[in-house]
């Protein structure tokens, strides 16, 4: 009886949405990751780190992004069309929908730009020089991260830079069409969605990540001392002092334990 009333109170939803929500989140995270990596790859286009490999990486990342996009879209559309979902769940799905559509917007713009830049910078034409941006390394690791593989294998043929462009054009039109359909079919008000993260949320759970890039901070701040380079260096100093102290404490503990062990035996 109590259980029955609870059911009625829930408006008829008789299953917990948490696993579904988590699944959606995972898929969105994957799409997000691929979008970020795709953007990094497109930024390298046309520069001296451009190469055959980069073009192939772009192509494969793009395809992966599209697969993920379609999967996400199907899932979320079916969920949002379902009228029997509770209010909180629906609000959550709308939030996920906003995440999804923002990702797709970024992806679409990046695809269009990669088409433009790809057309402007063909690789095989000797009179057409790549821009000397100072970036010379390869982007293999970024692509590997996007594809979630350890190492990338390259098997494309040599005219990928021109051949791929046609595919790219058709994919762009597909994506545009998909987005228009999305707008038509799903009635979600983006501004009504409330974000869960507050300002500065990116700082949390990233402190460890930030510390490891200490070296990069001091290099890139090629500026006079009154700039933020000073602040960064100061923080770096504190971090290293703390690390040293912790190390010393551990060493002391180890020495003490060792002494005890020796004494005991």
């Amino acid at each position, binding site marked *: 009886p109590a259980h029955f009333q609870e059911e009625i109170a829930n408006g008829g939803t008789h299953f917990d949405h948490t696993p579904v929500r988590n699944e959606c989140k995972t898929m969105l995270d994957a799409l997000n990751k691929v979008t970020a990596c795709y953007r990094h790859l497109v930024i390298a286009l046309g520069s001296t780190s451009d190469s055959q490999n980069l073009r192939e990486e772009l192509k494969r990342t793009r395809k992966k992004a599209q697969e993920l996009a379609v999967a996400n879209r199907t899932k979320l559309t079916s969920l949002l069309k379902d009228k029997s979902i509770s209010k909180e769940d629906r609000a959550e799905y709308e939030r996920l929908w906003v995440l999804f559509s923002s990702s797709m917007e970024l992806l679409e713009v990046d695809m269009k730009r990669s088409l433009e830049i790809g057309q402007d910078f063909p690789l095989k034409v000797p009179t057409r020089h790549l821009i000397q941006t100072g970036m010379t390394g390869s982007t293999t690791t970024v692509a590997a991260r996007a594809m979630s593989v350890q190492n990338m294998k390259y098997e494309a043929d040599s005219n990928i830079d021109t051949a791929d462009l046609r595919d790219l054009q058709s994919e762009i039109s597909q994506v545009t069409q998909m987005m228009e359909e999305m707008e038509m079919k799903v009635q979600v008000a983006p*501004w009504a969605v409330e974000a869960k993260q507050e300002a500065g949320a990116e700082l949390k759970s990233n402190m460890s990540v930030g510390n490891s890039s200490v070296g990069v901070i001091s290099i890139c701040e090629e500026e006079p001392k009154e700039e933020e380079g000073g602040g960064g260096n100061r923080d770096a100093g504190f971090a290293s002092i703390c690390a040293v102290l912790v190390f010393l404490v551990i060493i002391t503990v180890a020495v003490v334990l060792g002494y005890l062990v020796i004494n005991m035996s």
Partner: protein
Amino acid sequence: MTIRNTLRDHGQRYRPRMACLKKAEKLMLEMQDPKTGVKSQPQRLVITTIPHAITGEDIIAWLADRFQVDAQEARSFGSTLVALGYIYPLRDHKRLVIKPDASLYRFQTPYFWPTQQWPVEDTDYAIYLAKRNIRKKGILELHEQEQYNRLHKWMNHKWDFIVMQAKEQYRAAKERKKPDRVVFECQERAYWVVHRPPPGTVSAMDYGLDRRIDPNTEEVKTPDYYERIMIFTQQSIMRPRVKSSVSIGALVKYCATYRSHDPFLSNCLPSNPWLTDDVTYWTLNMPNVEIPTKMRVERWTFSFGELLSDPRGRNDFRLFLKKEFSGENLAFWESCEDLKWGTAATMREKAEQIYKTFLARGAPRWINIDGKTMEVTVKGLKHPHRYVLDAAQTHIYMLMKKDSYGRYMKSPVFKDTLQKAMSPEEHKFSDSQLEQNAKKRRPSLSPIVLRQQEQEQKAKMAANVDITQLCRFTTPVPHLAVYSGISDFPSANASPSLPFLAQTPVCPSPISVALDSTSASDRRVEASEGEGEGNPAAPATVGGNASKSRVALSLRRLLRRGCTPTTMFASLSPKCHSAAGTSSRIQPISPDQPSQAPPRRIANFFQIKVDIPPECRIYPIESEDEDEETRAASRGGVGAKEIICPWESLSPQNGTG
């Protein structure tokens, strides 16, 4: 309702055309040539070496050689390339200029090049700021913090996405090797310095409003398009042509006159706010400043239009006209402008007010326009629209221009202003002072606040205006507050009536009319028309003197006219005055009408009984107007003592006029 996201709303979001971008891109490609391009060198940092750094002097030398120009021009050209964002400095990244020494620059990657068709998105900026926040562990620069908070407020619904994407992009960037990482961070930072310039940075990509139409789209050749071309060509053929000597002469004259006033072509005193971030120039040239600058006063001498369009000039002119007792002209012109530019809802009332104040017979501030124009205007006022008073306004404008403006230029008011006008000293700022100024930059007063102030001032002015211009036809209408001051009985107290006293009564007192013959009144009318535009001498002594007692005035009138006391006193009462005025207005065309009818009519209209002889024609205006007004008044039955607009009538009106 579907929500259109901003990328697709087709509103105003196209960057105005920047034709220089394509040209700059071509140039960039030329610079990359290993043989003929700019020489690059490696940049040595603490741990790594990064290739492809170029020095400022190399860039300038290459540009000078490529375009065959001198070093100064090549330097400005180079600075433009930096300001556009195609090349970025490695040191001092906030100053987008080329230094002609060994300071290092680098080329920007094509993704971060400025483009015509890809708008710079706030979402991307938010992601960049979040990434920077991660890297700096929360310590952002002041302007970055402001932007961050602003974006967090306005893009709140996307904030989850922004945080997620920022983290992912940050992690993806770490996958690259260290030198590439460094380069990427510099590139991104340079991109945002160009497109979201920090205070004190001048970026060439800073522009005003977006356009509604994409300047890059090809126009589709529909039949409509061709029809527009045809219409345009036909109109061009019919256009009246001016001799080129005439038009060129006019251009030359304009340039010569305005050259020293143009802040682009000549020095702007004390300093150009856009260059030095110092707003003294604007505060000195506020619309209603007490002491104008010499340059501003000089502009007033160029043309009458300049004088009127400058609020300070207009005030000066108004003061002058007040002294000359022809202020109604300017007031009329201003209220016509108000009508033209006002909201449609208020147009009808405004037109009525203007008619009652300026155009009607017996109006408190009657303006002197010729009969034809008056007829056309009154006719048009039956169906008032925005431009109904255009003819009258033009007439008054030309009157002021040809007559008052010339006298104004020679008047003591203007000479006084000219003498008091100040000429500010030129500023000489050092570099550090310029930076200080840039930091102190703050937005000015909101336009809403400014508009409120403007309106308060207008209301104050309207309340302060007293009727100093009365013509011989003015009827004192006590209740009329607009444009007539709150004082109860302005006309009776108005001093300029004094000069008229010698010859004409202020209000066409029926007593004097009755005393004189009609021919004498005609003569009087003509004489007063002759001195219509005010004589400076007499009004000067009594200018703006609205507080004379009614009694004193009427006593004087009494003494001068030697009229019979009873009728005189009758005319003293307010009601009588209006009655007197209107009775003359109501004068029937045929003077041989029975004297019974008019008084009764007057009585019905004004609800008073006054014994006033009806037969006098004061107004030398067409009889039809009188006729229709008569009928209107008689049938009107509208509230007492009101000047009736000819189109206002409660009873079914005849169709005349």
